């Protein structure tokens, strides 16, 4: 089936070559980091995780969001999703790969990465995160590939896939829960020490992931005339609306607890993000952009007229993706380190090489997504004709 990825239009090949070239350029920056060490990043003793781990966190959500397609399609037999569910599963594969790569580029000693398996520490959440992420990758590969293959051969999928699909539903929830536990179980970081962290992660995942999927599906529709249909778009945008509402609601719960209790430890990180702390205001414009775009997206998503209108839906989805990305892919991780255990603020700005490496990792993800979607769409289109 993979051969479908080797036959494509000129445009397809130019795109593939462009991605490969970009990966090559970014890999050059990774080689610099590999030799010089993480000193080429903006991270420091006080802000010891930055862009990489933040992107990892965001993309775990995108990966988990495939479950928003799997549940209606497989659990509720909502057959109108038949043309989009494979796109979700394959996007999850690309997203998990991006997650694993972001962890890898963040390591100070990447050549020792197998130590996590050689000396497994069952008390470390990171061990479990590795386990659930690789499990999720394998599950989606198996399920996506097998069901697509069955479709190509015009036979029903083998019966052993069904239990794996049910398992993948629980597993999707687990990857983002365990990722939230990475943060929520640390004693000295009040901003992360919150029982609602996993719920917040899931809510933001279930709006941002499907939003990215829809935007990508719109692009694909333009390029290949592969149309997932009107109804799935309508249903997914409703799911996105509910999830985004929950996401903002959960954030406001955090804000209430911090500010009404008036406990400085709980307030400080929010202050740093939205007003600045000790004269440091680096993230303030970003966070307000995030807040305004988030509310703006809801304003467009909640009324049915604007949600069903293609143009305003696209605007809403873009606003939502940018908003959640700033919140989770920028603010959440950095603010956890601010202020530091001595109540001091150390600012963090990613460096140019750091940004290039992050772009490189994303490009690998887009490459995988392109190849997988090419296969999926070729098979699906053939089945239709």
């Amino acid at each position, binding site marked *: 089936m993979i051969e479908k990825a080797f036959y494509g239009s000129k445009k397809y090949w130019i795109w593939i070559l462009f991605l490969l070239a970009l990966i090559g350029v970014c890999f050059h920056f990774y080689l610099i980091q590999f030799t010089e060490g993480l000193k080429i990043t903006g991270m420091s003793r006080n802000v010891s995780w930055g862009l990489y781990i933040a992107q990892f966190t965001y993309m775990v959500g995108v990966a988990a969001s495939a479950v928003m397609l799997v549940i209606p399609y497989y659990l509720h037999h909502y057959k109108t999703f038949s043309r989009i569910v494979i796109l979700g599963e394959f996007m999850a594969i690309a997203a998990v790969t991006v997650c694993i790569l972001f962890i890898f580029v963040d390591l100070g*000693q*990447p050549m020792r990465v197998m130590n996590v398996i050689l000396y497994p520490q069952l008390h470390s959440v990171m061990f479990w995160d590795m386990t659930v992420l690789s499990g999720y990758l394998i599950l989606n590969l198996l399920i996506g590939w097998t069901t697509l293959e069955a479709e190509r051969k015009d036979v029903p999928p083998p019966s052993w896939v069904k239990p794996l699909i049910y398992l993948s539903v629980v597993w999707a929830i687990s990857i983002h829960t365990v990722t939230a536990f990475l943060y929520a179980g640390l004693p000295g970081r009040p901003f992360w020490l919150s029982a609602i962290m996993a719920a917040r992660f899931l809510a933001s995942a279930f709006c941002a992931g499907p939003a990215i999927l829809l935007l990508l599906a719109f692009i694909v529709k333009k390029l290949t005339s592969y149309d997932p249909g009107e109804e799935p778009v309508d249903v997914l945008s409703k799911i996105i609306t509910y999830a985004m509402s929950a996401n903002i609601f959960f954030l406001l719960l955090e804000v209430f607890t911090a500010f009404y209790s008036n406990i400085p430890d709980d307030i400080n990180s929010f202050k740093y993000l939205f007003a600045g702390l000790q004269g440091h205001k680096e993230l303030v414009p970003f966070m307000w952009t995030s807040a305004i775009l988030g509310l703006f997206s809801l304003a467009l998503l909640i009324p049915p007229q604007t949600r069903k209108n293609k143009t305003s839906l696209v605007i809403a989805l873009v606003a939502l993706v940018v908003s959640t990305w700033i919140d989770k892919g920028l603010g959440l991780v950095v603010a956890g380190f601010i202020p530091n*255990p001595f109540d001091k603020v*150390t600012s963090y700005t990613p460096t140019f090489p750091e940004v290039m490496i992050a772009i490189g990792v994303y490009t690998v993800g887009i490459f995988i997504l392109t190849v997988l979607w090419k296969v999926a769409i070729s098979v699906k289109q053939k089945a239709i004709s």
Partner: protein
Amino acid sequence: MDIDKRQFLKIMGISGALWLGSRLAGGLSSIFGIGDKLDKKALADAGLEISKTLPSVNALKAKQWAMAIDLRKFKTQEDYQRCIKVCDKIHNIPDIPTKQEIKWIWEEPYDAAFPEQHNEYIENQLKDKPVLILCNQCEFPPCVRVCPTGATFKRKDGIVMMDYHRCIGCRYCMAACPYGSRSFNFQDPRPFIKKIDPDYPTRTKGVVEKCDFCAERLDQGQMPACVEVSNGAIIFGDLKDPNSDIRKVLSENFSIRRKPELGTQPNVFYII
């Protein structure tokens, strides 16, 4: 010796099976903990000096090492600097003048060391008083809990140690430490070491490090270096021994610890 193809394959097959068997046996014995005993016995049988890998007979032993820093006895900058400098020197700590610095023991103002004690009207003497900061060697260390490889671990005497050869540099321990005690080698530290002390390993880029209560000195029967040069301002001993010096000073003086509410049970006490 002539061997034909058949014999050759036979030999290869048998040796391959033997190798696999020994690997499996090795793997199993290490799982069940037999390996260590066998290795030590084998070493002794071969007449090898296993003493080189064991602590000296003079090694200081304890159930839980702990430290009390008597802030009253730190009067001049010199009092602080003596402790800091000796540590930097004997542990090959690089002097990196950026936000990516390495610190094992350093000074923080009183209100930064104890932010939860915030008090605008605190007595003048304490207001901007510097406090020595180092790893608290927690009884329940969050860094050990989160480490995905066991590169940071707790010894039987309570010291939280680092294995620089196993650390993958994920820096989860730095996020977990509520005391900001850990430093990461963002770069090769060696060019930043003024004079390398060959008695202590230098570190490589990409690993985390921190104070280890001078475990290497305790194992040789010596007190931690900062304790030794503190002129009695730092008291060190076994917290589980009711007759130890440290228990005596703690029972006679008012002491506080950093962030005890987090349940880590820090083993560095401050007498104020």
